[in-house]
């Protein structure tokens, strides 16, 4: 089953994040959006890594808007 776990995520948070926060989200791109949100986009090793990312977001006080697996096979 693990091979079917999504490996790429786009995590949208409210507020624009300066590039200096990139080290907090290693290997992921911080993409500011026009609507004042930021999409944190990139590869995620596994589910624990994803939860670690979400925790970092919570620790920074960033309101979470959405989490999307971007490599989910389309059915």
């Amino acid at each position: 089953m693990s091979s079917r776990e999504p490996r790429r995520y786009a995590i949208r948070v409210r507020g624009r994040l300066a590039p200096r926060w990139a080290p907090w989200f290693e290997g992921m791109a911080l993409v500011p959006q026009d609507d004042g949100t930021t999409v944190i986009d990139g590869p995620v090793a596994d589910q624990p890594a994803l939860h670690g990312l979400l925790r970092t977001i919570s620790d920074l006080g960033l309101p979470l808007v959405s989490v999307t697996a971007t490599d989910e096979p389309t059915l």
Partner: protein
Amino acid sequence: MGPLLESKYRRPARRPGTVARARLTGALDGVLRAALTVVSAPPGFGKSTLLADWLATVGEDVAAVAWLSLDERDDDAVRFWTYVVAAIRASGAGVGDGALGLLAPGSPSAEPALVALLNDVGAMPRDLVLVLDDLHLVTAPEVHDGIAFLLEHRPPQLHLVLATRVDPPLSLSRWRARGELLELRSADLRFTGQEAATYLNGPMGLTLSAGDVATLDGRAEGWIAALQLAALSMRGRDDVGAFITRFAGDDRHVVDYLTEEVLARQPPDVRDFLLDTSILERLTGPLCDAVTGREGGRAMLATLERANLFLVPLDDRRRWYRYHHLFADVLRAHLAEERAASLPDLHRRASRWLAEAGDLVAAVDHALAGGHVDHAADLMERGTPAMRRERREAELGRWVRSLPDEVVRVRPVLAMAFVGALAQVSDFATVEQRLGDVEHAVRPDGGAWPEEPPPGLVVVDEEGYRSIPAGLEVYRAALALRRGDLDAAAGHARDGLALAPASDDLVRAAAGALGGLASWARGDLVAAEAAYVASVAGLHRAGFVADVLGCCIALGDIRRTLGRTGDAERLYRWALDLTDPAAPVRGTADMHVALAGVLLERDDLTGAAGHLDAARGLGEHRGLPQNPYRSRVAAARLAEARGDLDTALALLDEAERLHDGDYSPEVAPVPAVRARLRIRRGELHDAETWARHLSPDDEPTYLREYEHLTLARLLLARRDDAAGLLERLRVAAEQGARTGSLVEVLVLQARAAQVRGDMPSALGVLRRALGLAEPAGLVRVITEEGPPIAMLLRALPKQDPAYGSARRLLARLEATEGGPAPRSLVDPLSDRELDVLRLLGSDLDGPDIARELSVSLNTMRTHTKAIYAKLGVGSRRAAVRRAHELGVLPHRR
């Protein structure tokens, strides 16, 4: 565990400059009516501040307050609960001493301590509020299980308050449904417009219009940290209106934006200080000086605190602080962006200062964060002996895993520490491989162990280097034991003990215990005894009391089997003296149970009962894993000695259900103990069912000795031939110097000879048994045989060397017989014997009886002799009288 950081369980003082929030402190009064209070919100919502404010309103007569600030390192059940107990002890609640004794480092479970704690709290005259702050930092399921356990079993006095960013996994809905949950969430904690206005225009000293406040609060959404940052940015600013407009129109992350504003407005020295020291988890003046390379750190910290720059004091004397988490994160982001090149130096300086101050864990963290892996490895190696003493193998393992493999490979001492961590998590395949790596690194050609580490290897801890040869043997003994190769295990353990430096208590203790276990299972009890003595001595010197008690169970058993009952008793009493009666450690109950066993063997039933009561009084949580079953076996034996065979049987059934051998060899299996009781109750069929896996022709081995002795008892009860089996058991017990076993064999041999009608042999063997039993303090093994053995004892002539001993036993037997306990036949009569006995009560003579039963006269006489022996009588008339007394024959009208 390391030194407890007092600041962790210091309850934060009310901070000046906070807004009184009556709607929330009023709601928090519900804490004292709720089982559980959860204050759940993202960082910067004022959770801790609010709780501190409310706690200041709780009268000391109403409740004691224990506060614990958690951090990531508390993600370990024993460490976590040790801090909780420390916090409760510091709260003035007057409880927790008992629990502390049950939280030895390396304890397998915190539950015994929690039981003790709950019992103590349940007896408190006032309530106890236990606050766990920043609980989200702890994720270990064992910790959450423990919290759930605490809640499930809480006495009404206990009120748990959890402040967290993440809801704890505690099935909150159930507590909510029961009406025992109080919740405060971010929606509750956000500043209302009114609170924002009071805060900004009050403590923060601004004069903002209602419109400005509304704009700010709208952008910050009541987030207190953001409003605080905004206030700091506006202080002393002329263009407050413009600032507010700009802020409201910006879509950057609020904290990010505002921190930048705040930082931009600080003088350069303050700004530098903030950035440089942001790498520190905890700040104190001299540490800040070391990191910044400047002086005046202490004064700077005081200035920052006065300026409300997110500095949280950690003690009353204003010596230790930390930055607010959120603020620290932003500072670190700026530091990494602006001065990434200075990071290794900052961490190196922090690491050096912390190592000198004795906080090795933090020093290692900084060395690793700065990329100084060799320095980190040096620190780890220096810290290894203390970590091992404190049973922090798991932490050691995490440390070593954080180093590149090539660094570990050239550091044999550190590699051995890693092996210890691997062994603790039962990763034995890797243990084996790592042991080979270490050995190969130090002596690639397999020659003698070099006194000095060969060139190319790094050794910081020289004593640790000298312990490696012994350590290798100890781990190899453990691996062999796991494979079931007892000979190899005993050999490696022996070598380990021989190679261990006299000063390394832990290696000696480990080698001793492993060797003891292996020798015990092999039946070499003399070697096992010596090995366990070494282990107990090492553990005692290292101060591991609970482990000393654990080893004493084994060592006492071994001594008793060797017939050294007195030495066993002295050992148990010595071990009990090691424990603090105010805070008994686990294993205290086991020592009482063991003493009960010794006293029972001496026929001191009152003394035995006293110790069993003492063990029960301590509670199961003060027993080691074997105690539930061992205490019931001991209680069964006491019940049996008192003649209450039904209770004994019920207790043995319970013992079997609760059985946990805890890696000890199974020398007296509960089913065999129960088979003995069945035999005594005359339920031979049940005993026969049990005995199916055994044969009288089996070659005796020590691990089967107890079972074979039980089989011999069954054969005797059935009047079958047990002579061959008993003789082989005797030889084996003698060869193994197992005097305790030997006495039992001899007693059974005497009984067998008696049944055969061979009185000279019976008396000869009995004489030998008595000569061994009396100095060993063994009584019941003889008196248990009841009337038949009494007959033999009476038959010893006055001039016999064992005569005095026999008389003393007879006096005991008679005292027991006169006692109130209901008696039963120790050795039940067979159906055929009962037929004979019934006819003995008639007027028929011998030949008539034989004819009646269609047996030969000789057979009839054999039966008669057996009946006399079992009833302990010498004549037909006495046999009939006794049979009536015992209820074997119906009472005469």
